[in-house]
């Protein structure tokens, strides 16, 4: 995608003051993106960051690229138009759990099924931040929020499962403050040719502080997440002493290594495995399981924008480029003298 340029993080910092609450997880995500973008070999002017509405959707203002802060939930629609109109652009979406999965759910699943080469970074703080603390479709049941003062009775979405259900070709999960992991996942999403859905666990320290503590805090996360790495067994724990094994097909279980159980017995991660596998991983949830982070699925399939332009190319090659004068005069015409 263009010649490599000597870009640095600084090149991606816009002149706008960042206006998130101090301590918000969004800062870490911004920083990760600003670090990864210069490394992608894409000239800066080819990046477009699109967003909806929400704290997370302020993201484009802070990225010194082309940006479009759209309306609530509609970033995928705009991104789709941009990408189809100019496939040379590197098109990213920054969105929140409400923006992407509540009002924008349909656009997200359609973007994924169509496999447009667009990268969706969904900041999941399990709450509506910008509107000051209402329930989101990822909020856990029983949650007390401004709109559910007695606790919510809504079952939440599992974002990774939903993306898989929509047949997304790239599905991943990472954590705001786990910088190396997050950067790796963002890079992997960028490298994927096709739609990428990345759920980023993000802390809203004002309206939902601590929602993801066990996966964010340095001293706890090793016990609570399992990193998915292609071709490697699913091991976790501070001392990497536990892993995931299949108790039966589709039935994962946590086992402790040693005493007869070795890494050989564990599930080995395969991003290209049949979808049932990724779906199983998507349903591994605490407290029973550690939370998988990393790439759940990566599949190479034609992208929509490429297919559209190929079709146009093929038909143009066959019919010759359109001649406007001829087109206007097509069908039954007659002359009046």
């Amino acid at each position, binding site marked *: 995608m263009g010649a490599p340029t000597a870009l640095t993080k600084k090149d991606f910092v816009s002149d706008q003051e960042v206006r998130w609450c101090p301590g918000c997880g969004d800062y870490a995500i911004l920083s990760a993106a600003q670090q990864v973008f210069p490394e992608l070999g894409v000239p800066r*002017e080819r990046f477009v960051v*699109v967003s909806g509405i929400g704290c997370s959707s302020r993201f484009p203002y802070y990225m010194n690229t082309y940006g479009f802060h759209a309306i609530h939930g509609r970033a995928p629609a705009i991104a789709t*138009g941009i990408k189809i*109109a100019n496939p040379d652009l590197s098109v990213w979406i920054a969105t929140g759990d409400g923006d992407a999965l509540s009002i924008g759910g349909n656009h997200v699943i359609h973007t994924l099924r169509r496999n447009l080469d667009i990268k969706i970074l969904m900041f999941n703080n399990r709450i509506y931040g910008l509107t000051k603390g209402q329930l989101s479709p990822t909020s856990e049941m029983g949650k007390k929020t401004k709109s559910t003062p007695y606790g919510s009775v809504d079952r939440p979405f599992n974002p990774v499962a939903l993306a898989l259900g929509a047949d997304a070709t790239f599905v991943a999960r990472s954590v705001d403050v786990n910088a190396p992991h997050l950067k790796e996942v963002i890079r992997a999403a960028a490298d994927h040719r096709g739609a990428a859905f990345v759920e980023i666990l993000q802390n809203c320290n004002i309206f939902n502080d601590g929602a993801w503590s066990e996966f964010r805090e340095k001293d706890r996360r090793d016990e609570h997440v399992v990193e998915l790495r292609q071709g490697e067994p699913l091991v976790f724990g501070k001392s990497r002493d536990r892993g995931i094994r299949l108790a039966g097909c589709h039935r994962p279980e946590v086992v402790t290594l040693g005493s007869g159980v070795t890494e050989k017995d564990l599930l080995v991660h395969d991003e290209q495995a049949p979808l049932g596998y990724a779906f199983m991983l998507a349903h591994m949830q605490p407290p029973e399981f550690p939370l998988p982070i990393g790439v759940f699925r990566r599949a190479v399939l034609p992208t929509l924008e490429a297919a559209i332009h190929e079709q146009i190319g093929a038909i*143009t090659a*066959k019919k*010759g480029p*359109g001649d*406007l004068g001829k087109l206007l005069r097509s069908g039954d015409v007659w002359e*009046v003298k």
Partner: protein
Amino acid sequence: MASETTSNGTKPGVETLDRVVIRFAGDSGDGMQLTGTQFTATAAIVGNDLATFPDYPAEIRAPAGTLPGVSGYQVNFASEDIFTPGDAPDVLVAMNPAALKVNLKDLKAGGILVVNSDAFRESDLAKAGYQGNPLEDGSLDGYRLVRVEMNRLTRSALEGTGLPQRTMDRSKNFFALGMMYYLYNRPLEVSLRWIEEKFASEPEIAAANRLALKAGYAYCEASEIFHDTYEVPAARLAPGTYRNVNGNQALALGFVAASRKSGLPLFQGSYPITPASDILHELAAYKNFGVITFQAEDEIAAIGAALGASFAGSLAITTTSGPGLALKSEFVGLAVMVELPLVVVDIQRGGPSTGLPTKTEQADLLQALHGRHGEAPCVVLAARSPADCFECAYEASRLAVRHMTPVLLLSDGFIANGAEPWRIPAVEDLPPIPVAFRTDPEGFLPYARDPETLARPWAIPGTPRLEHRIGGLEKSDGAGNVSYEPLNHERMVRLRAEKIARVALDIPPASPSGDHEGGLLVVGWGSTYGSITAAVRRARAEGKRVSRLHLRYLNPLPSNLGEVLSQYDRILVPEMNLGQLAFVLRGRYLREIVSQSKVEGQPFRESEILDRIREIA
């Protein structure tokens, strides 16, 4: 093939007429739309002026033989210039009792009524709710009834084909067509050629239709069921090359032309909806013009994708009907704020809500003008006829690009599906649509304004050193950064309003036809053009002091409009709604307006407007 129509020589008793209106009516399954279109194609080639009105049921296929299943196609063809499909048919072809029942009331007294008498069995009559048989009870005495056993005659013509009887019966619409070709002394070639092409892969069907067409013609010749035949000579149309277009085709062509002339690739984001879907179907076929058609998941995504494509430098359009425009409201507001070019086409249909999806109406004008939250002014245009759709699509594109604004273009079901001859413009005669993307980073401000139009620069992604962010929050004047500053907001609200107001400098002034002043002025917009024009012409012929003005530009209104209106004593505004333009004109110019409303899902008849003119002029 041409030799096959030598029978089309001169015949005894050929009377010349100025204009004739035929309505083909039958069951949805009877192929009446096709028959009408074929008759129209031939009339066009013969050189008649013409106007058509297809009227079909909302159901895909209502139960055969029932009243809701009736499909009709009316064509008015003439040697003079005409503006409407005609009020009352001179000829009604009724393929079954339901078609007779639904359409008879419109047939002229003494008009020719051709019926397929094979379809008047007791069960057929019952389905149409007839107690007795109208062919026999004298109730049709006021018409020139021509009964034809079309099923039987078609079958016998097709005997040699070996086709099953049901398939044979499907060709009876061509039999009827052949009869009308005989009656009006039309050549068969156009339809024969069309049959050949259309059914190239089904040669038996082609043969059947060909045979049926000729049989219908020959039957009249042989049977002399029509005492006289008629001729409608070519019209004195302006010299040029013509084709027949319906409104949706013309829109599609207009956008492709604008794309070519502007050098911008055309991007259509759309979601199917009657009666707008055909624009998508048309454009989807123009791939070798680089046209991208994106069928989105809904109307919101459709306009969103179009707006994204506009940001990326395409000529972006989105096409829909009323319910879809309602859904797009929020996005049109965003387009106003980000000031990108975008054409939003609304092919109006009967409302409110799902309403009458296949019927026509003009009741979305106020939605187009006001259907957004906040002060969100847009340019609004309306096409007046099928052929005018070409110019309107082109003009909407030009204004959108030049003024960096969303433009709403209104059409309606009547002109979307109705056809008329279109004088094809030469490509070089189309006005230029100059586009200059911003490329110079020096002094670039995303919301700097062109001093003349107040348009902001179009700086598209991919351009080095013009990286910038746009969005729906209020913008600071010039820099375009987010601004909550009170006075900046007021300034921007007024700038956006002024930008649209200045479009009035880029459009022609209002110029009425008829008298420059005094008497009655009939003001119209959209598809009432034909009926108004015809009615006013007639009234003037009767000596009435009546003029007319048809508005293409509904926002901004032409800058001299107030002045023009003030020249007349009375103003009549016929509309297929409850008086929406009338309300706007009253609010704008404080003029008393006589509003004529018709909200039947049907276009105005010339006579309805004429009657109203007679009452007040």
